[in-house]
Protein backbone atom coordinates (compact mmCIF):
# COMPACT_ATOMS: atom_id res chain seq x y z
CA UNK A 1 0.00 0.00 0.00
CA UNK A 2 1.64 3.20 -1.18
CA UNK A 3 0.45 6.68 -0.27
CA UNK A 4 1.82 9.99 -1.51
CA UNK A 5 1.27 13.02 0.66
CA UNK A 6 1.50 16.72 -0.04
CA UNK A 7 1.28 19.12 2.90
CA UNK A 8 0.07 22.69 2.51
CA UNK A 9 -0.55 25.27 5.26
CA UNK A 10 -4.16 24.26 5.93
CA UNK A 11 -4.61 21.02 4.08
CA UNK A 12 -2.79 17.77 3.53
CA UNK A 13 -3.62 15.70 0.46
CA UNK A 14 -2.99 11.98 0.48
CA UNK A 15 -3.05 10.19 -2.87
CA UNK A 16 -3.48 6.43 -2.87
CA UNK A 17 -1.01 5.10 -5.45
CA UNK A 18 -2.36 1.51 -5.40
CA UNK A 19 -5.27 0.77 -7.73
CA UNK A 20 -7.25 -1.01 -5.01
CA UNK A 21 -8.13 -0.87 -1.32
CA UNK A 22 -9.49 -4.29 -0.45
CA UNK A 23 -9.63 -6.90 2.32
CA UNK A 24 -5.97 -7.78 1.72
CA UNK A 25 -4.75 -4.19 2.21
CA UNK A 26 -7.38 -2.43 4.35
CA UNK A 27 -5.50 -2.70 7.66
CA UNK A 28 -2.27 -1.52 6.07
CA UNK A 29 -4.11 1.40 4.48
CA UNK A 30 -5.52 2.45 7.85
CA UNK A 31 -2.09 2.32 9.52
CA UNK A 32 -0.40 4.31 6.73
CA UNK A 33 -3.17 6.92 6.87
CA UNK A 34 -2.67 7.22 10.62
CA UNK A 35 1.05 7.91 10.09
CA UNK A 36 0.50 10.25 7.14
CA UNK A 37 -1.99 12.47 8.98
CA UNK A 38 -0.34 12.57 12.40
CA UNK A 39 -0.15 16.15 13.70
CA UNK A 40 -1.29 17.39 10.32
CA UNK A 41 -3.47 20.36 9.35
CA UNK A 42 -7.21 20.56 9.98
CA UNK A 43 -8.23 19.27 6.54
CA UNK A 44 -7.20 15.92 5.08
CA UNK A 45 -8.10 15.23 1.45
CA UNK A 46 -7.89 11.56 0.50
CA UNK A 47 -7.44 11.39 -3.26
CA UNK A 48 -8.87 8.16 -4.69
CA UNK A 49 -8.49 9.04 -8.38
CA UNK A 50 -6.18 6.08 -9.01
CA UNK A 51 -8.27 3.60 -7.04
CA UNK A 52 -10.30 1.44 -9.41
CA UNK A 53 -11.59 -0.96 -6.79
CA UNK A 54 -12.82 -0.57 -3.22
CA UNK A 55 -14.63 -3.32 -1.33
CA UNK A 56 -16.50 -3.19 1.99
CA UNK A 57 -13.27 -3.75 3.93
CA UNK A 58 -11.67 -0.80 2.15
CA UNK A 59 -14.75 1.32 2.80
CA UNK A 60 -14.68 0.30 6.48
CA UNK A 61 -11.03 1.37 6.65
CA UNK A 62 -11.82 4.82 5.20
CA UNK A 63 -14.62 5.28 7.76
CA UNK A 64 -12.20 4.12 10.47
CA UNK A 65 -9.69 6.79 9.37
CA UNK A 66 -12.40 9.45 9.63
CA UNK A 67 -13.09 8.26 13.17
CA UNK A 68 -9.47 8.14 14.27
CA UNK A 69 -8.80 11.64 12.95
CA UNK A 70 -11.34 12.85 15.49
CA UNK A 71 -13.10 16.20 15.69
CA UNK A 72 -10.01 18.36 14.96
CA UNK A 73 -9.22 16.98 11.51
CA UNK A 74 -11.81 16.60 8.74
CA UNK A 75 -11.45 13.79 6.20
CA UNK A 76 -12.61 14.72 2.70
CA UNK A 77 -12.48 12.64 -0.46
CA UNK A 78 -11.64 13.40 -4.08
CA UNK A 79 -11.56 11.73 -7.48
CA UNK A 80 -13.96 8.81 -6.97
CA UNK A 81 -13.87 6.41 -9.94
CA UNK A 82 -17.22 4.87 -11.02
CA UNK A 83 -17.00 1.59 -9.07
CA UNK A 84 -15.73 3.35 -5.96
CA UNK A 85 -18.48 5.95 -6.22
CA UNK A 86 -21.04 3.13 -6.46
CA UNK A 87 -19.82 1.59 -3.19
CA UNK A 88 -20.15 4.93 -1.37
CA UNK A 89 -23.58 5.58 -2.88
CA UNK A 90 -25.10 2.13 -2.19
CA UNK A 91 -23.96 2.19 1.45
CA UNK A 92 -25.00 5.86 1.79
CA UNK A 93 -21.50 6.66 3.05
CA UNK A 94 -21.40 9.38 0.38
CA UNK A 95 -23.56 11.40 2.80
CA UNK A 96 -20.98 11.49 5.59
CA UNK A 97 -18.04 12.75 3.52
CA UNK A 98 -17.43 15.93 1.58
CA UNK A 99 -16.56 14.60 -1.88
CA UNK A 100 -14.67 16.72 -4.43
CA UNK A 101 -14.37 15.95 -8.16
CA UNK A 102 -10.58 16.17 -7.99
CA UNK A 103 -7.78 16.87 -5.54
CA UNK A 104 -7.08 20.17 -7.34
CA UNK A 105 -10.64 21.33 -6.71
CA UNK A 106 -10.45 20.17 -3.10
CA UNK A 107 -7.24 22.09 -2.48
CA UNK A 108 -8.47 25.26 -4.22
CA UNK A 109 -11.42 25.20 -1.82
CA UNK A 110 -8.86 25.45 0.95
CA UNK A 111 -7.15 28.43 -0.68
CA UNK A 112 -10.41 30.36 -0.99
CA UNK A 113 -11.64 29.40 2.47
Amino acid at each position, binding site marked *: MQLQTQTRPKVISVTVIDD*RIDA*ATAIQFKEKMREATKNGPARVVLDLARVQ*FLDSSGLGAIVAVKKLLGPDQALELSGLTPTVEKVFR*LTRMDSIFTIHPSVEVAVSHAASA
Partner: protein
Amino acid sequence: MPPAPDQDSPPDDLHLTFLATPVAVRDSLAQMMALPPLCRLSAESRGTAELVLAEVLNNVAEHAYADQSGPVSVTIRSTGHGLRCRVVDQGRAMPDGTLPPGRLLESLEVPVTDLPEGGFGWHLIRSLTSELSYARVGDRNLLQFTLP
Protein backbone atom coordinates in the same frame (compact mmCIF):
# COMPACT_ATOMS: atom_id res chain seq x y z
CA MET B 1 -4.41 -33.29 -32.68
CA PRO B 2 -5.93 -30.60 -30.46
CA PRO B 3 -8.21 -31.83 -27.67
CA ALA B 4 -11.88 -31.97 -28.62
CA PRO B 5 -14.03 -29.34 -26.93
CA ASP B 6 -15.82 -30.70 -23.89
CA GLN B 7 -19.46 -30.89 -24.97
CA ASP B 8 -20.71 -30.95 -21.37
CA SER B 9 -19.06 -27.71 -20.44
CA PRO B 10 -19.80 -24.67 -22.63
CA PRO B 11 -16.63 -22.74 -23.39
CA ASP B 12 -17.98 -19.66 -21.62
CA ASP B 13 -18.25 -21.35 -18.23
CA LEU B 14 -15.70 -20.21 -15.71
CA HIS B 15 -14.70 -22.55 -12.94
CA LEU B 16 -11.97 -21.95 -10.38
CA THR B 17 -11.07 -23.53 -7.03
CA PHE B 18 -8.58 -21.96 -4.66
CA LEU B 19 -7.65 -21.61 -0.99
CA ALA B 20 -9.81 -18.94 0.63
CA THR B 21 -7.37 -16.39 2.09
CA PRO B 22 -7.54 -12.60 1.51
CA VAL B 23 -4.44 -12.63 -0.69
CA ALA B 24 -5.57 -15.68 -2.70
CA VAL B 25 -9.01 -14.06 -3.13
CA ARG B 26 -7.35 -10.98 -4.61
CA ASP B 27 -5.16 -13.02 -6.99
CA SER B 28 -8.01 -15.31 -8.04
CA LEU B 29 -10.31 -12.35 -8.67
CA ALA B 30 -7.72 -10.84 -11.01
CA GLN B 31 -7.48 -14.20 -12.80
CA MET B 32 -11.28 -14.54 -13.11
CA MET B 33 -11.82 -10.97 -14.32
CA ALA B 34 -9.46 -11.67 -17.24
CA LEU B 35 -11.43 -14.73 -18.39
CA PRO B 36 -14.73 -15.13 -20.21
CA PRO B 37 -17.52 -14.50 -19.47
CA LEU B 38 -16.32 -11.75 -17.07
CA CYS B 39 -13.80 -10.17 -19.45
CA ARG B 40 -16.60 -9.62 -22.00
CA LEU B 41 -18.72 -7.46 -19.71
CA SER B 42 -19.01 -3.68 -20.00
CA ALA B 43 -16.75 -1.69 -17.68
CA GLU B 44 -19.66 -0.97 -15.34
CA SER B 45 -20.84 -4.59 -15.15
CA ARG B 46 -17.26 -5.75 -14.65
CA GLY B 47 -16.91 -3.40 -11.70
CA THR B 48 -20.13 -4.73 -10.19
CA ALA B 49 -19.15 -8.36 -10.77
CA GLU B 50 -15.72 -7.85 -9.21
CA LEU B 51 -17.24 -6.13 -6.18
CA VAL B 52 -19.87 -8.82 -5.54
CA LEU B 53 -17.39 -11.67 -6.03
CA ALA B 54 -14.89 -9.94 -3.71
CA GLU B 55 -17.53 -9.52 -0.99
CA VAL B 56 -18.72 -13.12 -1.27
CA LEU B 57 -15.22 -14.60 -1.35
CA ASN B 58 -13.89 -12.44 1.48
CA ASN B 59 -16.85 -13.52 3.59
CA VAL B 60 -15.83 -17.13 2.98
CA ALA B 61 -12.21 -16.34 3.91
CA GLU B 62 -13.07 -14.29 6.99
CA HIS B 63 -16.16 -16.03 8.38
CA ALA B 64 -16.71 -19.53 6.99
CA TYR B 65 -12.98 -20.28 7.42
CA ALA B 66 -12.45 -17.89 10.34
CA ASP B 67 -9.88 -19.93 12.27
CA GLN B 68 -8.71 -22.29 9.55
CA SER B 69 -8.43 -22.17 5.78
CA GLY B 70 -9.94 -24.30 3.08
CA PRO B 71 -10.98 -24.42 -0.54
CA VAL B 72 -13.64 -22.35 -2.25
CA SER B 73 -15.02 -23.10 -5.71
CA VAL B 74 -16.53 -20.53 -8.03
CA THR B 75 -18.58 -21.39 -11.11
CA ILE B 76 -19.91 -18.66 -13.40
CA ARG B 77 -22.22 -19.43 -16.30
CA SER B 78 -23.61 -17.04 -18.89
CA THR B 79 -27.38 -17.23 -19.17
CA GLY B 80 -29.88 -15.23 -21.20
CA HIS B 81 -30.42 -12.80 -18.33
CA GLY B 82 -27.05 -12.34 -16.68
CA LEU B 83 -24.33 -14.42 -15.10
CA ARG B 84 -25.40 -17.24 -12.82
CA CYS B 85 -22.78 -17.68 -10.08
CA ARG B 86 -22.27 -20.52 -7.63
CA VAL B 87 -19.82 -20.42 -4.72
CA VAL B 88 -19.14 -23.54 -2.63
CA ASP B 89 -16.98 -23.85 0.49
CA GLN B 90 -16.50 -26.36 3.29
CA GLY B 91 -16.33 -23.88 6.14
CA ARG B 92 -18.71 -23.13 8.98
CA ALA B 93 -22.40 -22.72 8.20
CA MET B 94 -24.05 -19.29 8.20
CA PRO B 95 -25.29 -18.32 11.67
CA ASP B 96 -28.89 -19.61 12.03
CA GLY B 97 -28.51 -21.25 8.63
CA THR B 98 -29.64 -18.13 6.79
CA LEU B 99 -28.06 -15.19 4.99
CA PRO B 100 -27.30 -12.07 7.07
CA PRO B 101 -29.85 -9.31 6.41
CA GLY B 102 -27.23 -6.70 5.49
CA ARG B 103 -29.30 -3.80 6.75
CA LEU B 104 -27.87 -0.32 6.86
CA LEU B 105 -28.36 2.02 9.79
CA GLU B 106 -31.76 3.71 9.65
CA SER B 107 -30.08 7.09 9.97
CA LEU B 108 -26.54 8.30 9.55
CA GLU B 109 -27.28 11.28 11.78
CA VAL B 110 -25.09 9.74 14.46
CA PRO B 111 -21.90 10.96 16.14
CA VAL B 112 -18.82 10.19 14.03
CA THR B 113 -17.63 7.76 16.69
CA ASP B 114 -20.78 5.66 16.17
CA LEU B 115 -20.42 5.34 12.40
CA PRO B 116 -20.34 1.72 11.24
CA GLU B 117 -17.01 0.35 9.94
CA GLY B 118 -18.48 -2.94 8.79
CA GLY B 119 -21.67 -4.70 7.83
CA PHE B 120 -21.60 -3.17 4.34
CA GLY B 121 -20.74 -6.41 2.56
CA TRP B 122 -24.11 -8.19 2.57
CA HIS B 123 -25.88 -4.95 1.80
CA LEU B 124 -23.73 -4.57 -1.34
CA ILE B 125 -24.28 -8.21 -2.34
CA ARG B 126 -28.05 -7.89 -1.87
CA SER B 127 -28.17 -4.57 -3.74
CA LEU B 128 -26.21 -5.80 -6.75
CA THR B 129 -27.50 -9.34 -7.31
CA SER B 130 -30.78 -11.11 -7.96
CA GLU B 131 -31.95 -14.69 -7.24
CA LEU B 132 -29.70 -14.85 -4.20
CA SER B 133 -29.97 -18.11 -2.28
CA TYR B 134 -28.04 -19.98 0.39
CA ALA B 135 -28.15 -23.64 1.39
CA ARG B 136 -26.13 -25.85 3.69
CA VAL B 137 -25.65 -29.11 1.83
CA GLY B 138 -23.91 -31.73 3.97
CA ASP B 139 -20.70 -30.07 5.16
CA ARG B 140 -20.74 -27.42 2.44
CA ASN B 141 -22.09 -23.91 2.02
CA LEU B 142 -23.72 -23.31 -1.33
CA LEU B 143 -24.36 -19.70 -2.33
CA GLN B 144 -26.00 -18.85 -5.67
CA PHE B 145 -26.82 -15.52 -7.24
CA THR B 146 -27.24 -13.78 -10.58
CA LEU B 147 -25.21 -10.78 -11.69
CA PRO B 148 -26.83 -8.33 -14.11
